[in-house]
């Protein structure tokens, strides 16, 4: 392949009857060229730099270059923009205000000690933002530096980076390369300038699209371009993928351009060795980039809730300040009555405004500001930055997970944005793309039924998954050592047919016809390797390739196609020799979605005219001749079996035509083909329809749309975890249905618009009538579905699957219907939407997101999924394939769908746990600390004097309590990864948001208040008035403050130690380290000059350390403070254990290998799962046992 050989004399465009390029090209839109919106002018092959002075023709220079930039900041705007972003957060803004206020006299502490933590916090966040943006920049650079061959001034094609492309350049794109910009197709390796394009990245459709250049340029070759000049006028850049209006002036003639000539950036050249194209749109002007909306900044649910909690804290803060101010105002006012001073030592007669009894309201107001500053320790200043740091570290762990590394593509998991980690643990609905995400987009011929006999012993992924779950050591044929090297597209083994053995089968004749049909009835092109003689095929769709390959492997080798004939080698049953047969190709009756079949009419060497047809069972069985139904019953049964196994089936049939009949058909067909009226296609269809009748059934094929490794298993685990999976695919309904999401006995509710009435209306072409009828039809179908559901809900837990196609979805998503649609959808076990456009994917995602209010996860691999990924709460990109669009707009990129299991169940679960306990803990520790300040205020007539030294205050959040909490956020595990995967039910904790609902949040807050009260009460009572040590001195403010502070540091750190369930060395170091740091700080700070340390001067070294009562008191207070929490968790563990605690318990008891216990724990749900192989197996055993019981009764 790719040897630069031309397919001589092969005009691909001739093979196609319907779809090929040359439709009516001139239409109304072309008249708009040159007007507003259609003003682009491209001078092909006249790069701008040559014309620097000639302003008239220098249009190319005005257009954007081909550099793509997705970064948020530039060097210049980084500082202001990121600062602005920072202070948009309420908490940060609050701290900014208090920071500014702390420079005034209002401040209860020194300004530096207040502003420093803020600076630390803001800087850390900004550094993190900067690093993330740098990474984005790197990715941009990677894309911008991809290589492409571009025509240089010298007249030769040289490789250059994508970013260097300018509008008007001519480039050569080779097979399987992406187009670097939107190109105008000039010529290709085919004579008629045809090329195949895979647009999966754009619209998700897997079949190849045929594009064709203008005839006038089709003969241009590599060396003709140096003096090729053309003048193109076309529309301005826009986001519409399917339109292109323009004209090209070449050799003094104007030719109209259509989308047929436009090759879009990020689509891929397939089955064509190379093409030449002229650059029309570059960089941000390209349609694909125009289509991509700027990535929305997503915030996780937890963070949004956290904001709410912070508002609650703010409320408490304001309340405390207000209450304090009222009391302060009253006491201040009373200090001076009728010029008599009450608290004379405060000199109320000669006071500043802040304490002036004569202006008590003003004093109270200012006091309120002071109190806000003082109690601001209620608001965890370092919470945001800690969360960001923690999330970055969590992302590193995700990136580093060796179990999510894909060896073949050398891709590890990659968390693109780090701020959604915990959201991964709360996914309620997964919206998944199919092709390339669930499947590998490769088709394998796996089974067939010929003459009513089933052949093929291959095992599908779905079956494998089920067998694995069954615990059966399935000795499948795939693993037998004598198996031949796998052939792409062929996974068929059956010794009855292989190696020519088919001749000994009872219906050898039918078998021959069967494979002959497979070898002939297609539009693939063979490519013979001249050295080895091996044949490979270029087919429009992988299914088709699979058929031709299957035929070849069995012994019907298609090796040559000409304009009018097909040649195959086939085994002669009599002579056992390979003989060459040539069939004259008379007509091709194309496949399309309404016909659901394709036929070819050929004449064999004996002059027989054969119609060979393959198609969907729904249309084929009705077209059989009465004498052709010999195998119908058996075949039908096999087809159902295959469909249940998740395979795509086609029915094969043929018909022998007599000369006369064919001639009549040919005449009509040619007439229909040549007609130019609007009816053309209907006419062709009608003619074809008439000939494709009275056929003889040969058999059926089963193709496996190969699922990615481990997909069924993964889906099974995910549904056990209670996650709902929607499949949104651009593919057709048939191909979309069977992917392992369905199981036997599952009732399907199919919503579609393929009804006769609608079709007849469509022929009429009255758009309003169509839409009205469609709307009614959908409404009716939806309500019927709902009825079915309610009818079934009473009886047993019947699982339903909803299948809806894109056209119906348009109506179902309308305002008046979307609620009933969603209600229906949410009560179905699986939902499949087929033929949905990228936009619809996004719309569905949005609908699910807003209506259910639950977390949605979008997963996809192509640019057509971008909308969905951005709309969903979390977007996951599959990075296994080459396309970068999805990955770039995703939040996490993984190489394979099956890694989703680990990503969600392990990392998601952990991150959710970590973040939520971390936030709760943050609230706890700040309330514990902040409330002691308030309690002290109560005893200081609310004057606003802090209980602690300034630097104790400001360093609390930075040093003495922040590191263990970060360790909690990064390292804590309730159970290890192994158990997360073994007990997917654990994930429910995240979906139900058990760990971060108001209950735990408030419990932690209450715990904080209790701790704080205990600390303050015991410290103040124990140190009250009597001598503090043997030396008889009493404890002043300095000693009480330091003691209380010591208690707080101990308590919050030990509380942490109690709360976490995973102690590595790191936790030990950080928890005990924080306490040690406090003492070290106390010593060091106390040793500084007294002008700096104030009342903390030598407070530890001189007074506390040598005093037994200090140590005894701290010991007592710390233990006592922990008792309530400890009792509470012991009770909870005993009476209301959470799921993870049950699993922990199980692990602790060493019962994890006891299947009975595991089953009990695993089934800890009253609601059964309805999707996935486990459910499938359960259903099977159920029906078996049912069957068994009924026989017993007889």
């Amino acid at each position, binding site marked *: 392949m790719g040897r630069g050989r031309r397919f001589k004399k092969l005009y691909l465009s001739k093979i196609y009857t319907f779809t090929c390029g040359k439709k009516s090209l001139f239409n109304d839109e072309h008249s708009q060229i040159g007007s507003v919106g259609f003003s682009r002018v491209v001078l092909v092959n006249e790069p701008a730099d040559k014309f620097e002075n000639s302003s008239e023709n220098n249009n190319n220079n005005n257009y954007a270059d081909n550099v793509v930039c997705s970064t948020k900041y530039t060097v210049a705007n980084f500082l202001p923009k990121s600062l602005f972003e920072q202070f948009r957060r309420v908490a940060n803004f609050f701290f900014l205000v208090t920071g500014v206020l702390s420079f005034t006299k209002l401040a209860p502490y020194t300004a530096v000690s207040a502003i420093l933590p803020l600076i630390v916090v803001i800087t850390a966040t900004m550094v993190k933002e900067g690093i993330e943006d740098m990474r984005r920049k790197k990715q941009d650079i990677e894309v911008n530096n991809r290589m492409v061959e571009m025509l240089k001034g010298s007249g030769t094609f040289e490789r250059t980076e994508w970013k260097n492309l300018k509008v008007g350049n001519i480039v050569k794109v080779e097979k399987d390369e992406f187009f670097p910009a939107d190109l105008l197709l000039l010529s290709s390796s085919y004579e008629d300038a045809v090329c195949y394009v895979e647009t999966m990245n754009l619209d998700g459709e897997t079949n190849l699209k045929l594009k064709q250049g203008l005839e006038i340029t089709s003969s241009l070759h590599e060396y003709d371009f140096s003096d090729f000049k053309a003048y193109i006028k076309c529309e301005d850049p826009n986001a519409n993928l399917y339109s292109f209006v323009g004209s090209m002036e070449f050799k003094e003639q104007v030719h109209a351009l259509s989308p047929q000539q436009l090759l879009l950036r990020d689509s891929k050249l397939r089955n064509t060795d190379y093409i030449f194209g002229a650059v029309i749109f570059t960089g941000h002007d390209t349609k694909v980039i125009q289509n991509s909306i700027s990535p929305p900044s997503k915030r996780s649910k937890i963070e949004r809730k956290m904001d709410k909690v912070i508002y609650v804290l703010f409320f408490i803060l304001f309340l405390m300040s207000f209450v304090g101010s009222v009391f302060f105002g009253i006491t201040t006012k009373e200090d001076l009555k009728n010029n008599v001073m009450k608290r004379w030592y405060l000199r109320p007669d000669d006071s500043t405004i802040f304490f002036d009894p004569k202006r008590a309201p003003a004093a109270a107001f200012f006091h309120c500001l*002071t109190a806000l500053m003082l109690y601001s320790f209620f608001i965890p200043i370092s919470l945001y930055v800690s969360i960001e740091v923690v999330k970055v570290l969590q992302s590193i762990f995700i990136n580093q997970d060796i179990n999510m590394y894909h060896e073949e593509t050398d891709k590890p998991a990659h968390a693109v944005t780090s701020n959604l980690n915990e959201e991964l643990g709360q996914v309620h609905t997964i919206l998944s793309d199919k092709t390339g995400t669930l499947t590998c987009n490769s088709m394998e011929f796996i089974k067939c039924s010929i003459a009513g006999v089933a052949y093929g012993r291959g095992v599908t992924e779905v079956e494998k998954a089920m067998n694995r779950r069954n615990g059966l050591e399935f000795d499948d044929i795939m693993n037998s050592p004598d198996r031949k090297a796998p052939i792409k597209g062929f996974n068929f083994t059956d010794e009855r047919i292989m190696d020519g053995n088919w001749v000994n089968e009872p219906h050898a004749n039918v078998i021959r016809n069967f494979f002959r049909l497979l070898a002939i009835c297609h539009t693939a092109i063979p490519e013979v390797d001249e050295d080895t003689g091996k044949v490979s095929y270029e087919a429009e769709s992988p299914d088709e390739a699979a058929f031709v390959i299957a035929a070849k492997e069995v012994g019907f080798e298609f090796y040559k196609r000409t304009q009018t004939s097909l040649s195959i080698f086939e085994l002669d049953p009599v002579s056992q020799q390979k003989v060459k047969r040539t069939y004259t190709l008379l007509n091709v009756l194309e496949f399309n979605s309404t016909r659901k079949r394709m036929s070819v009419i050929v004449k064999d060497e004996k002059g027989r005219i054969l119609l060979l047809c393959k198609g969907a069972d729904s249309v084929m069985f009705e077209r059989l001749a009465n004498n052709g139904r010999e195998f119908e019953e058996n075949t039908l049964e096999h087809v159902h079996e295959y469909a249940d196994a998740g395979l795509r089936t086609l029915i094969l049939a043929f018909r022998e035509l007599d000369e006369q009949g064919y001639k009549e058909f040919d005449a009509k067909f040619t007439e229909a083909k040549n007609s130019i009226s609007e009816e053309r296609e209907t006419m062709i269809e009608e003619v074809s329809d008439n000939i494709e009748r009275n056929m003889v059934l040969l058999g059926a094929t089963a193709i496996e749309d190969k699922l990615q490794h481990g997909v069924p298993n993964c889906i099974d685990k995910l549904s056990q975890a209670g996650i709902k999976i929607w499949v949104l695919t651009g593919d057709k309904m048939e191909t979309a249905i069977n992917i392992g999401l369905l199981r036997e006995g599952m009732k399907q509710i199919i919503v579609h618009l393929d009804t006769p009435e609608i079709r007849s209306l469509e022929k009429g072409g009255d758009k309003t009538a169509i839409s009205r009828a469609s709307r009614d039809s959908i409404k009716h179908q939806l309500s019927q579905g709902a009825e079915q559901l309610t009818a079934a809900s009473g009886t047993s837990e019947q699982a339903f699957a909803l299948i809806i196609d894109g056209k119906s979805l348009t109506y179902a998503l309308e305002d008046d219907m979307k609620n009933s649609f969603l209600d229906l959808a949410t009560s179905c076990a699986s939902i499949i939407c087929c033929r949905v456009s990228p936009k619809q994917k996004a719309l569905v995602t949005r609908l699910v997101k807003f209506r259910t209010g639950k977390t949605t996860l979008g997963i996809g691999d192509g640019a057509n999924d971008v909308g969905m990924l951005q709309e969903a709460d979390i977007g996951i990109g599959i990075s296994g394939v080459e396309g970068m669009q999805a990955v770039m707009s995703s939040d996490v990129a993984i190489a394979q769908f099956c890694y989703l299991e680990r990503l969600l169940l392990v990392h998601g679960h952990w991150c959710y746990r970590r973040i939520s306990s971390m936030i709760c803990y943050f609230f706890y520790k700040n309330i514990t600390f902040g409330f002691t300040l308030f309690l002290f205020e109560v005893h200081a007539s609310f004057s606003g004097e802090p209980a602690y030294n300034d630097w104790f205050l400001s360093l609390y959040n930075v040093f003495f309590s922040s590191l263990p909490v970060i360790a909690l956020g990064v390292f804590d595990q309730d159970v290890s990864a192994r158990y997360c*995967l073994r007990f997917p039910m654990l994930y429910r904790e995240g979906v139900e948001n058990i760990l971060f609902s108001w209950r735990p949040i408030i419990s932690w807050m209450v715990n904080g208040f209790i701790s704080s009260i205990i600390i303050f009460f015991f410290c103040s009572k124990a140190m009250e008035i009597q001598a503090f040590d043997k030396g008889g001195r009493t404890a002043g403010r300095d000693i009480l403050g330091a003691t209380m502070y010591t208690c707080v540091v101990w308590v919050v750190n030990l509380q942490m130690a109690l709360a976490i369930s995973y102690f590595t060395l790191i936790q030990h170091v950080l928890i005990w380290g924080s306490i040690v740091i406090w003492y070290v700080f106390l010593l060091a700070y106390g040793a500084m000059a007294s002008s700096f340390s104030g009342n903390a001067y030598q407070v530890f070294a001189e007074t506390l350390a040598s005093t037994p009562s200090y140590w005894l008191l701290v010991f007592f207070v710390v233990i006592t403070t922990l008792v309530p929490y400890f009792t509470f968790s012991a009770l909870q563990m005993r009476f209301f254990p959470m799921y993870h605690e049950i699993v922990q318990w199980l692990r602790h008891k060493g019962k994890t290998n006891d299947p009975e216990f595991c089953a009990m724990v695993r089934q800890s749900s009253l609601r059964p799962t309805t999707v996935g192989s486990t459910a499938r197996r359960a259903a099977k055993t159920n029906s078996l046992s049912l069957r068994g019981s009924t026989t017993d009764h007889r």
Partner: protein
Amino acid sequence: MSSSGAGAGSTDSTAARRNTKRPKYSKFTQQELPACKPILTPRAVISAFLLVSVVFVPVGVASLLASRKAVEIVYRYDSECIPKNVKNKVAYIQSSADKACSITLNVTKRMKSPIYIYYQLDNFYQNHRRYVKSRSDEQLRERSEENSTSTCKPEDMVNGKAIVPCGLIAWSLFNDTYSFSVNNRNLAVNKKGISWKSDRDHKFGKDVFPKNFQNSSIIGGASLNESIPLRDQEDLIVWMRTAALPTFRKLYGKIEEDLNEGQLINVTLKNNYNTYSFNGKKKLVLSTTTWLGGKNDFLGIAYLTVGGLCFFLALSFTVVYFVKPRQLGDPSYLSWNRNPGGH
């Protein structure tokens, strides 16, 4: 675990390929560090509670014993030391009359030297922000900083001259005085060493002398001897270390002599300090100390209470665990099963 497509087995091939993006395996990056994973098993819970009570009860007993050993005599004199006929106590205390007063303390238990003398004030907010901030540490420490009185308002200057020591704290220095006699024999009161050493050495200068003190229109509290440097004015030093709570004791001096049970101490005091404006009480306290400090049963009782509580908890948990063991993995308590509707 099915997703482990790239197992550990392929490590060898990794070494061969340099540019692979394969994450490096380490227990740390894979989050498999050896860890201790404590859970609250019945045994752990019960032993924790028992341990706490086993430690707490003896400590409590010891503390209580220590507290009981300390002897304390508290005598409130603020109302008693105002002549009965005085209506306006504030006016009386602000007058320049001789406010000497005599009281008798009864030694209820033998007190071993040193016996500490405290004055106890009540409802006095030494922790008020205006009060606490109203001092100049620079000025107290160094003679050259005499004029840095900006933080001391309104007691910063008098007649344009800086007050040393400035500020409200110093200005309101406690000025009741006590002298003690037993059987008409004066007891010596040692006022040295009643303050913290670090204060004397580093916070109050030895060359800083009081100046212009108590010279303003309103006299606050005690005056200072201008010939004694601040570092030797220990009453001031003690007073300047502000109390944390509105009820506080401050050390007045020491009696370095044992007092026997039943002895009567005559105290002659000068009731100068105005606590009447703000309804504060004044008490005179004589107390001995132990290794734990002065007399306060609180810590001991608290230790005993919590120790007892933990013992009780340990007992009840034992009972619960043994009488009604719950079946492992009983799912009916799980939140999503408790309200099946809310999914």
